[in-house]
């Protein structure tokens, strides 16, 4: 089964989902509420996306976009999965139960973007100090130590 057919099947199972081809890669968009369910389905069906290369986020200004880069090692397929999160209270189910590698990736996204992953075994900062305030990869983050030079806008 080719990837497009599989994604059509995913879409029929999860009506909130949509997909498109961007360059050589396929991008699947899902509602945040179905994040974990879709992830579980992708890992166990079709080409079996058993390998989570990366999990990260992008601050799109009005929302936080969560991005998965998946691989199916046996089938040699690649897939990008995205969901949009509310910027004020970003919360989504953890996928650590599906891919163990998600653990540190989710901690990093929590650390740098402030996304809360429900059901994560140990959601703590990973790169920054525990008493650090704020989430620096958000676009509106201002370094409190930054000093303005006189005359600078």
């Amino acid at each position, binding site marked *: 089964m080719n990837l497009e057919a599989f994604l059509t099947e995913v879409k029929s199972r999860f009506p909130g989902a949509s997909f498109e081809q961007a360059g050589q890669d396929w991008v699947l968009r899902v509602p945040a509420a179905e994040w974990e369910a879709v992830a579980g389905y992708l890992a166990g069906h079709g080409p079996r996306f058993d390998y989570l290369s990366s999990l990260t986020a992008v601050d799109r200004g009005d929302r936080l976009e969560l991005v998965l880069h998946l691989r199916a090692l046996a089938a040699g397929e690649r897939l990008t999965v995205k969901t949009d999160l509310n910027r004020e209270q970003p919360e989504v189910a953890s996928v650590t139960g599906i891919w163990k590698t998600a653990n540190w990736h989710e901690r990093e996204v929590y650390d740098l973007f402030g996304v809360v992953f429900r059901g994560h075994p140990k959601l703590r900062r990973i*790169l920054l100090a525990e008493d650090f305030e704020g989430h620096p990869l958000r676009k509106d983050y201002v370094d409190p130590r930054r000093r303005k030079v006189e005359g600078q806008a």
Partner: protein
Amino acid sequence: MTTAEKTATQSEEVLEQVLTVNFGPQHPSTHGVLRVVARIRGEYLQDAEPDLGYLHRCFEKIAEGWTYPQIVPLTDRLDYLAAITNEWAYVLAVEKLLGLQVPERAEYIRVIVGELQRILSHLLWMGAYALDLGATTPFLYVFQERERLYDLMQLVTGARMTYNYLRIGGVKRDLPPEFFPLLEKALDNVLKVADEYQALVLENVIFQARTKGIGVLPPDLARQYAISGPMLRGSGVAWDLRRSEPYSVYDRFDFAVPTGQNGDCYDRAVCRVEEIRQSARIIRQAVAGLPAGEVRAKVPAAIRPPAGEVYTAIESPRGELGVYLVSDGGPQPYRLKWRAPSFVNLQVLPEIARGAKVADFIAILGSIDIILGEVDR
């Protein structure tokens, strides 16, 4: 109770206790500034939890404020033992966004310096790993060879470790003519060192006792943790991005993807040594097939990729080095995510170290081949 008896009882008690011990952040076996909080009971490790971030330099945040070409030297500082590979992963992502065609000669040069970099990185690992296990001599042998290779890199790039050699659209300058005879000699030496290492270290009974059956990573667990590079191949999964998802001109070269069977520290070591030989093979083929022509494509002075995004991954000496690059059409990246293989590979440490002896823990940590500059970014 005599003093001797008292001491004996006390040591018995200590053996029964679970102690929490810090490995690092300043410990020679951690290869940088990694802290591992270990819980030990007697000589056995109950659990180990890595604590990261001591080397965090806000790379991804800084990148959002710099222009595309400015970021190339910044990437050198991530995996500082494989700077070329970092530059390559990054420029590849930008070139894909731009839809830029790189001249063939530049692609071949990238393969040559990229594989030299893999040899350099694996050589250091070979020396440092033997050192971890208590053997000092191999370290000195590989450093001798490394120096010669670094001289070569200096001849080509002008620098020894942080090269800033790759450019968006090609490389900084062509290979000098005096490079080729020196390279030929250097490769001969490298292959000799690999054979020596094989005989003196890999076939050494002490080395085998310290690494065989230690830190076993089953293939299923490796996939669960998205392990890549020699660690994944050591577990018997023949996955190498140069082969399974060929980038640049790798589909034109003949090389083997060495794999292990048991997924232990020994298999990972064997894979790395064999990869040195395969890299030498690739370099020889690339030199033989080196086409003439330009080494840099015509690139506009101000690089502004069209709005969009791309995820590119290349096979670094440590595994899948992924770059997720988002552009909003401006002169700076909107978002740059660095998928560092060391960061991902390190995560499996507690799983494969649980229940090991403390001394074996050093062997297991060393076999992962982490670079903290890349873990912490």
